[in-house]
């Protein structure tokens, strides 16, 4: 009759525990010894069968004999195996004495596998475990939106600039930057605060004023010395010279900062003025060209 069972369920017709893949078929029955769907490893088609199963870290040997076949509730007999590996193997041998070789062998193999993975579980739990935190989509979206709004409200560039100017005013930078008007203001403050060193302060003020005046005068001269000429050769040479002048000016301007100038913010400071100068070498170039 077991042969009949196998012939119908296992081989030909439907078995609910059977899973077929392209190369192999597996058995999902929990009492299956090997996990494959074979005539010798099907728990339904063998009246004398044994398995090893693990519960909460302890291994049990389950046995089924033909005598108990009509009593399904008492069908599977369970034996607790010892924690010691060798002893447990002996216990398996003892319980399955006179049983077919195949079942004995497969039971021991299965037991070995189970103990190995139990050891691995115990080792892994000692190591660090990644804690998985669930993200709520609604919360995430809300936080993102609030961050964007906070960014807009922060006006970071303005805030940073204000702070830097504050620090400049409070003289945290010391003598690195010398803006004449700034010094003038400072001098004014000194004058208001201390009345003793007035004379020194006045001298400083005068010097500053003179400097400013001198600066203005120079600019006027350069403006007056504009000569408008339509000749291309002249304009090119003049432009070269003017570029040199600009770079020189920039170099001197940046030397006070102590660093090479950057491209971005410094360029846009002045409107681009073309100042044309006459050079002595012009007539020579003209004659050469002609």
């Amino acid at each position: 009759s077991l042969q009949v069972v196998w012939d119908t369920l296992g081989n030909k017709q439907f078995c609910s525990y059977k899973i077929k893949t392209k190369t192999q078929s597996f058995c999902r029955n929990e009492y299956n010894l090997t996990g494959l769907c074979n005539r010798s490893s099907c728990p339904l088609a063998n009246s004398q069968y044994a398995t090893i199963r693990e519960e909460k870290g302890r291994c049990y040997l389950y046995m089924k004999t033909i005598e108990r076949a009509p009593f399904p509730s008492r069908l599977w007999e369970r034996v607790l195996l010892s924690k010691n590996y060798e002893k447990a193997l002996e216990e398996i041998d003892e319980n399955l004495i006179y049983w077919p070789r195949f079942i004995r062998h497969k039971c021991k193999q299965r037991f070995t596998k189970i103990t190995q993975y139990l050891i691995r579980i115990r080792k892994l739990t000692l190591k660090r475990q990644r804690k998985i935190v669930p993200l709520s989509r609604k919360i995430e979206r809300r936080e993102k939106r609030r961050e964007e709004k906070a960014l807009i409200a922060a006006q970071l560039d303005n805030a940073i600039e204000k702070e830097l100017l504050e620090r400049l005013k409070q003289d945290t930078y010391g003598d690195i930057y010398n803006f004449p008007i700034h010094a003038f203001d400072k001098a004014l403050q000194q004058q208001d605060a201390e009345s003793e060193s007035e004379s020194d302060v006045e001298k400083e003020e005068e010097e500053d004023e003179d400097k400013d005046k001198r600066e203005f005068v120079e600019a006027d001269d350069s403006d007056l010395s504009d000569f408008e000429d339509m000749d291309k050769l002249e304009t090119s040479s003049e432009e070269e010279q003017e570029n040199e002048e600009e770079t020189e000016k920039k170099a001197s301007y940046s030397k006070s900062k102590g660093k090479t100038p950057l491209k971005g913010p410094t360029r846009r400071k002045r409107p681009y003025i073309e100042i044309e100068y006459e050079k002595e070498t012009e007539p020579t170039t003209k004659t050469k060209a002609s």
Partner: protein
Amino acid sequence: AGQGPAGSAGRDAEPPAPERVLFPPTFSVSEIKNKQRRHFMFLRWKQQQRKEKLAAKKKRRKEREALGDKAPPKAIPKTIENQRVYDETTVDPNDEEVAFDEATDEFAPYFNRQTVPKILITTSDRPRGRTVRFCEQLSTVIPNSRVYYRRGLALKRIIPQCIARDFTDLIVINEDRKIPNGLVLSHLPDGPTAHFRMSSVRLRKEIKRKGKQPTEHVPEVILNNFTTRLGHSVGRMFASLFPHDPQFVGRQVATFHNQRDYIFFRFHRYIFKSEKKVGIQELGPRFTLKLRSLQKGTFDSKFGEYEWIHKRREMDTSRRKFHL
């Protein structure tokens, strides 16, 4: 009931809404059962509200112009910062107790210039490309910092080793799905540990800028808007990452700006064009942080003593309440 026939005249055949629709005072849009009609009525009601508002605005403007100089001053618009719920832990600049606390807390040796900050930057296990690059850039921004890869080491074992090697701060950047999303900042000789959520990380190449790499100069630090006690301690934590004496020659500034509990980090180079104008150029990475928890000792998630944890259900109830 009076609007019934008007509403049921059919959507397509309905002419454009008349200039002044008079809704009877007991009428409520929500009482109409039909969704289409209700929607239509709602739109009409909305339009009318808008018209009324516009008319009121115009009237007010006319009145204001008519009054001229005698007009009352313009009302200040309400912003979230204006309406912020007053936090009782806000620090008063002249508070002595706070000053005393700050003179004796874990950062006192830093602020007294007894210790020079030395920082170890590391990540969670198996960092991916973006995180690695971010760590490198962060180490160029913060002077005197090293990046060490974490190859499965437990933090609790790293910390005593770091202390032995004289590190003052430990930064761990947590990564999820190839992007950095968390930051743990721990002040080492038994100092507070802050855990942040990091968002919108931009690497250097993603920032639209034309500047060069940050140099080795020590940058200045700007801490904005840290008003409460908690904010103060967090601000001091950030300040202690950078050496105390900035080199103004470098003209670099690192900014931690707190706005509505979000801390924005930026790294700029500045240049003073005149005494009233300054230009800034952004270099370096940028990211935003949100504080999740502040712990008293070094990193210990199980037995640590937490000074502050963000509890969403209790603390996120009001839109006007901020903790930093």
